[in-house]
């Protein structure tokens, strides 16, 4: 499979990207994919491992290593290499519901675990995936797969994020009648409003939703289950209910002055921007949200980076991104070997853009906010920060970050975006269905199962698992579909 010596002969090559200063002019994707010919050689670099770590999706040293979907990476890479795009597409879709999403937003666990990464650069699996799925769309191979036979069973999927969509697609194709409920105005959940458009073009989401609709999935938007429609009603109408509402309760920064105006949760902010763009067909850019402001982003993760990229596009005056943890090393530390997830410094697109625009990295490590300071109108204008240091908690033995006395600083901030993660599922939904939740506010299910404490109600995705990656959500959605199918039919061939 593949080309045995490919990894020695060819270098890794990524898609070209538009220069930061060019791409910040709009909110569109900025990657310029390789030609199919060149992409083929990227497939040739795959070593067709006897133990493909890339697709293992297993926990190593507490972190996921390899693809949780168990994508058949060596097989698709091989088919990319041989230019067999259609077969590659079929192989990819065997395990994957939405390659077009992950090939844009996934941190590529497959590549981190790639054996080529042990001594050299990993195979460009993520871009291979994108090439496969985009080729498939371009060639018209992606067609709605309507079930030939309907089972007569009905399923409600609550929440149209990646987990909900994946489950809905599976269940519908199997022959069940599926309705997806979405509280927002457009389906897609996090894919729609949690990820900015330049990272995941919303037409890509629409394209998939349209396909699913053609396959027979019904989407009910602007319907907030637990508020607009009662749980009991749903259970009356549908044979099964699957909860995929995400872990959408954001973690707050509870410090003095938090009630100042101009402090947003990142998802709300990003969603507002995207909605404005979509509503106006990209005609209206909501510059007013950030133009000319000193922006403080709290949280060093992917969402924080998305915020940086977004406010730069909105014309922010400056941007700072606070991260509590210390700056990671540039190369893998001794105790963080392959195939563990590399805890190394990664400069994402937003940070690149900040460097290009402001001349310096926006990230400030080992720092947090101790107080928000509002002006007279109640608008945020400054934030007080403090340096942190590591300290071992004597009782639990865990590492804590504690303030360093005398390092307090006050910095200007007219816009604060809190991207400090999520706490778990939202209470009103779990309450509505009276499903049991665990101490982290995730829905409690059997260890390897998706059934909740309430009969006929299932849960999957971040709502069950806690905040995680899109790829995990898709896996959960697919597995939950299998569980739902089995509970409906007594057997499953999913």
């Amino acid at each position, binding site marked *: *499979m593949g080309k045995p*010596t490919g990894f020695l002969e060819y270098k890794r090559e990524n898609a070209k990207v538009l220069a930061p200063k060019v791409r910040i002019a709009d909110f569109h994707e900025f990657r310029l994919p390789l030609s199919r010919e060149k992409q083929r050689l990227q497939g040739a670099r795959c070593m067709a491992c006897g133990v493909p770590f890339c697709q293992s999706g297993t926990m190593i040293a507490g972190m996921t290593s390899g693809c949780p979907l168990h994508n058949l990476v*060596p097989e698709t890479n091989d088919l990319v290499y041989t230019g067999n795009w259609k077969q590659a597409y079929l192989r990819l879709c065997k395990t994957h519901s939405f390659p077009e999403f992950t090939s844009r937003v996934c941190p590529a666990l497959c590549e981190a675990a790639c054996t080529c990464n042990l001594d050299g650069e990993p195979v460009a699996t993520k871009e291979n995936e994108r090439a496969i799925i985009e080729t498939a769309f371009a060639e018209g191979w992606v067609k709605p797969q309507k079930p030939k036979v309907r089972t007569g069973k009905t399923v409600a999927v609550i929440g149209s994020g990646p987990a909900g969509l994946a489950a809905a697609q599976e269940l519908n194709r199997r022959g069940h009648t599926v309705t997806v409920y979405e509280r927002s105005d457009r389906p897609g959940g996090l894919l729609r409003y949690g990820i900015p458009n330049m990272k995941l073009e919303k037409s890509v989401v629409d394209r998939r939703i349209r396909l699913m609709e053609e396959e027979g999935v019904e989407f009910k938007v602007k319907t907030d289950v637990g508020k607009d429609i009662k749980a009991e009603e749903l259970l009356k109408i549908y044979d099964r209910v699957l909860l995929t509402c995400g872990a959408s309760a954001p973690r707050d920064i509870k410090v003095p002055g938090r009630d100042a105006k101009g402090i947003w949760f990142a998802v709300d902010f990003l969603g507002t921007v995207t909605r404005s763009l979509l509503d106006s067909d990209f005609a209206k850019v909501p510059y007013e949200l950030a133009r000319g402001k000193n922006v403080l982003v709290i949280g060093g993760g992917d969402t924080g980076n998305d915020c940086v990229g977004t406010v730069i596009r909105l014309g922010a005056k400056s941007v700072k991104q606070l991260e509590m943890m210390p700056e990671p090393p540039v190369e893998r530390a001794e105790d963080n070997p392959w195939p563990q997830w590399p805890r190394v410094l990664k400069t994402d697109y937003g940070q690149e853009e900040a460097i290009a625009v402001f001349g310096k990295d926006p990230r400030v490590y080992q720092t947090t906010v101790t107080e928000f300071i509002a002006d007279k109108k109640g608008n945020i204008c400054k934030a007080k920060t403090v340096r942190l240091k590591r300290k071992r908690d004597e009782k639990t033995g865990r590492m804590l970050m504690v303030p360093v006395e005398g390092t307090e600083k006050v910095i200007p901030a007219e816009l604060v975006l809190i991207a400090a993660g999520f706490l778990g599922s939202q209470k009103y939904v779990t309450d509505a269905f009276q499903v049991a939740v665990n101490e982290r506010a995730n829905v409690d299910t059997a260890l390897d199962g998706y059934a909740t404490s309430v009969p006929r109600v299932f849960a999957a995705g971040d709502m069950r698992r806690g905040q995680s990656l899109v790829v995990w959500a898709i896996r959960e959605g697919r597995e939950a579909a299998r569980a739902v199918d089995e509970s409906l039919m007594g057997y499953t061939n999913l």
Partner: protein
Amino acid sequence: MKEVRKEEQQGLYRREFEHDNCGIGAVVNIKGKKTHETVANALRIVEHLEHRAGKDAEGETGDGVGILLQISHKFFKKACKKEGFEIGGEREYGIAQLFFPQHEIRRAQAKKMFEIILEKEDLKLLGWRTVPVFPEVLGSKARECMPCIMQAFIQKPQDVEAGISFDRKLYIARREFEQSNDNTYVVSMSSRTIVYKGMFLVGQLRTFFADLQNRDYESAIAMVHSRFSTNTNPSWERAHPNRFIVHNGEINTIRGNADKMLAREENMESPYLKGELHKVLPVVNRNGSDSAMLDNTLEFLVMSGMDLPLAVMITIPEPWAYNDTISQEKRDFYQYYATMMEPWDGPASILFSDGDVMGAVLDRNGLRPSRYYITSDGYMILSSEVGVLPVPEENIVLKERLHPGKILLVDTVQGKVIDDDELKEKYAKAQPYGEWLNSNLVRLKDIKIPNVRVEEYTEEQRARLQKAFGYTYEQYRTSIRNMALNGTESIGAMGTDTPLAVLSREHRPLFDYFKQLFAQVTNPPIDAIREEIVTSTSVYAGKDGNLLVQQPENCRVLKILHPILTNTDMLKIKNLKQDGLRSAVVSTLYYKSTRLERAIDRLFVEVDKVFREGANILVLSDRGVDENHMAIPSLLAVSAVHQHLVKTKKSTSLAIIVESGEPREVHHFAALLGYGASAVNPYLAQETIRELIDNHMLDKDYYAAVEDYNHAVLSGIVKIASKMGISTIQSYQGSQIFEAVGISKEVIDKYFTGTVSRVGGITLADIEENVEKLHSEAFDPLGLNTDLTLDSVGAHKMRSQGEEHRYNPRTIHLLQQSAKCGSYEMFKEYTKLVDEENHGSLRGLMDFVYAENPVPLDEVESVEEIVKRFKTGAMSYGSISQEAHETLAIAMNHLHGKSNTGEGGESEERIASSGSENDRCSAIKQVASGRFGVTSRYLVSAKEIQIKMAQGAKPGEGGHLPAKKVYPWVAKTRHSTPGVSLISPPPHHDIYSIEDLAQLIYDLKNANKFADISVKLVSEAGVGTVAAGVAKAGAQTILISGYDGGTGAAPRSSIHNAGLPWELGLSETHQTLLKNGLRSRVRIETDGKLMSGRDVAIAALLGAEEFGFATAPLVTMGCVMMRVCNLDTCPVGVATQNPELRKRFRGKPEYVENFMKFIAEELREYMARLGVRTVDEMVGRSDLLRAAENVDEPHIGKVDLGAILDNPYAGKAQKVTFDPRAVYNFELEKTLDEKILLKKCAQAVSGRTRVELNVEVTNTDRTFGTILGAEITRQIPAGLPEDSIVINCKGAGGQSFGAFIPKGLTLRLTGDSNDYFGKGLSGGKLIVKIPEKAGYKAEENIIVGNVALYGATSGTAFINGVAGERFAVRNSGACAVVEGVGEHGCEYMTGGRVVVLGKTGKNFAAGMSGGIAYVLDAENMLYRNINKAMISIEQVENKYDRQELRNLIEAHVEATGSEIGKKILDNFAYYLPHFKKLIPDEYKRMLTLSAKLEEKGLTGEQAQMEAFYESIGVKH
């Protein structure tokens, strides 16, 4: 005798596993003159074959010795008179030699029965005679079960002719008696011959039987046999001779032969046994040995009117299909009989006699030695060895050997010797066979394709069928595609680590439960590629003819050249409209709701119906699987029907052809053929090829692709058969050479009768459930959508959604990290994962029985002590990198464990580093079939010498190191040429049988008397009995490898389907050694994916004392189970020679050491809990193991570990571990080397003086000169100056004369020598010449035996006469001149020079990849005998070549005084054009390349390097 059998079915041992090999001999007076001399000389022969006879641990009971003689009228007349009765004239009476019970009443009953039967058959008993014997000479075991030996004298009725007619009457009576009485044994019963035999040491035959000592006992024919059995079970009747034959060798296809013989009873009718046939049946006695069954068959054919030589010819035919040196008549004759009788295949040197003629035949491969002399006084003396009987040289008129496939006959009535040609021409011309074939035999390829379309499927239908038959993506993308693309099977690496089929959660096809058996020790695997000449793939379908009557319609059958059928072949067969050939299709489909058992019963009814309607070709078809039709698994259907046909005696009247969607991999087809199918049409596999083409995954013409796929399958089957030593598909078919693992007794007994299955397992209901599950994935019961894409199961290369692999991302990571960081806690995390029970091994189903009072941990044997028992696996330098290889050696030397060289030799520098700080010298030196770099120095440097009989990943197969992997540094340690491919033959060419192995063990012990000799075997059914034989042969360590081990490259079908788990093999070995009282003689070692302390603890409890690790240490050094070892692209620098990749190697000795220590530490923890303090205490304590409960494994309750855990021989008062006092005594002090040579050469050995001495030698002086040679190497590693020590010998050299002798030692032998002359020659000089007064011409007579100069690495040999088969096989550097060679000369040679001044046998230079041979081809016939696959034939034109040739011949003449040599030198210009130069193409290319580069100014080494890179097309 019955009671014994019952006991033998306990535990893992089975009586049918027993094997025996032997030494044979015969003395015949050609003119038929009876003398006592003949008897006495034959006894003397057997007494000189002691080293070919086995004995028990105490050395006092032999395995069996016997003699067949003509009835001596002179003797018996007197003897009977003494008993008080007259016997009449010569041949007027017959004698039954009988083994009767010692128990008086039972004996009386038997005698009475015998008398009654005689009476009923109108035969008159003249009287009884108790045979006078001397039991006191016997060993205790033999005496305990000694029968009462009696002779009955039977008068010839008046109306019956003397000779065969009378013998026929006696035969009928005997068969009746045998079936009416089961505690007696009829040794012989004939008017012409008599057999004396028993459980003797070779000398005891004479001393036990007074008759044989009597000077009155005279005979013109005497055949003797000494048996070397794998075990020491008491058995008098298993000694040879049988009634007609003595046999040295083994019939590998015996199951199929016996089945077919029994079925043939229905088709055979002879006027000679008219009305009496029913008394004789069954023709073969299933409880007998292979030799006994062959004897039964020959006897039956002879009694039915066939000439004995003809019967022998058709059961052991010479290879005729690809042989263009035989006449058309002969070919027709063989073809005619091939339609009715399959070859009885296997190594065989058979001597046969009916009292009038005495003959000998050798199997088609020439695998047993048989030498003979004809003397001027009219004797023929034949034996396994020369020198067994001293004959004055001047009396010898001919020294010859039996040739492969040839018969030699002495007719004592006519008084002449009849050679093969004369004999075969006579039979070939007896009938117009050619004409008969022409009008009757139908060849499939000649039938016109009927005007019918082949059924085709839509994409969706195809996908559903693939799902229903359980196809996987790996099979689709890798197996099927690669076969269709390349015409060969896929290669894999790193063994297997997936569950046994029975313990798998995947839906594994039934094929996966069957493991291929293979030959080891007691018979050799063969090389079907290099020795294709002996193979045949033809099968015959139709009703077998009547073997006993020669008639044209006998050959009215369908000949299928290629048993993997295309769809058009299938059309032809289904539409067959020929006289006497009718096919009928029976469907193997059944309705979804039907029970499988009923479906099979219905199948039987259908089969019987078509049979009644006259069909003789049965097509079992599963075409038509759909929503409600499921298919009986094809293997189940075939085997069930085959067994049904065998039971109802229809199997030779109705051939089974399978049309199935299920088979797709080589192993599947092999299983189908092995269980009775004659041919297979894999329609879905072929459809799948179409799909691959349609999907652009295979860019090839469909018909070409199918042809290549079929070819790959067929050559794969031929390879599987050849692993068992079987060379024809016709004999493989129905031979059931498999062991089942995980199938219940009921299913086996009913549908796979006779197959060994020792741990129980799945029932018919489970099989049914599996079929249904797969079917519902293809056809959803509600018609809902299902995923029709093929699943990725990851049977070989892992897939996370598929089969469990014990080496997976988590375990690999934890193992690497723990070894690197030295963290035992992390190691415990690792073992917790690898010991999880769902890895599907037998040991996973076991639990410990912990002691109530554990031992404190600090009282348990220390880690430092335990690791001394650890070894790393045999991985050659060449398969893994220098860095990896040395890291292992350093680590193991630190720990005082042992590392293993593998089969690739070891560099001088590393050997020299022994004992230094940086000791990289491997303690274990492996000797494998390729003998790469096996020099005197290599052997002398060993602490342990390991003979690799088989390797876990590919037992029974050889190896092929492709040219591009033979880097210059690899070539150097292997004594070969860079860039030239290297072939290791499947067998050791000096081990075709157990006594051969004993000889090699003896050789190696001579080559280094301080080293232990170890023998590596692979677990399979019967490995225990083989191990017992190996222990008897003198090994000190026996390694039982599991099937799952193996780090190198091997065909995937072998990795996954050959061999068994070590749990079975190890327990069987431990039990069988105990049973035979041999356990304390040897250490048992085991390996095969030993990954944790738990694995090791279980291995110890099952009987292992030492433990081998290969994969795990590689992983600690960085291996990530890439499984690309065969591609030279290992990304971590472990299994590669590529300098770029080697730079990536990150392993350190500490990592390996940490791993070993951790394993030991964990083992200690188990020991403490088990309540034992030392490893020795726990060895064999299977009572501390029990079947685990509450384990989450599929089919767990059905797997029965009883046979493994309940050791029937435990607890008896004998030592269960190795005891140094019980070690085999080689008696080296009795060798001439120790007695004379070392003493007289003491000064010369250290290089201080030169010495020359004279000694007399005989055939029992085996391995002469080797101890002296080893001493030279020990003192002066580089050897002495030429001719520093010259030993002049006279007489017959024993086997392995001059083995491994180093530079400076010259052995000059006047006389002749036996097999393995100059084995492993390491720089010494060997000369053998005929005595001055010889009465024959040197160049026409055999002077050295088979396999001379095998594995020679340097030195010279001058041979003044003809050598036997396989001369200079695997020579890599020696120069030899010889005056003629047998078949397969210079096979696999990689270096050196061979000059042949005479004829060569067939298949010369097969697989030869280096060196040069100059052959005198006076009659321009050489081209016919050359295997041209790798070499070119040239004239000797180049002046260097001319000079070299001349120099060698001059040296030869000088050394031997060769007449022919002188003649050539005298007329050199005349002879030169008649010489042919044979040079391998690759070798020549490399020589030319480096020569060119040297001209450019590069040094020799640089030039080699550059040439290598240029040849593999790499710029560097």
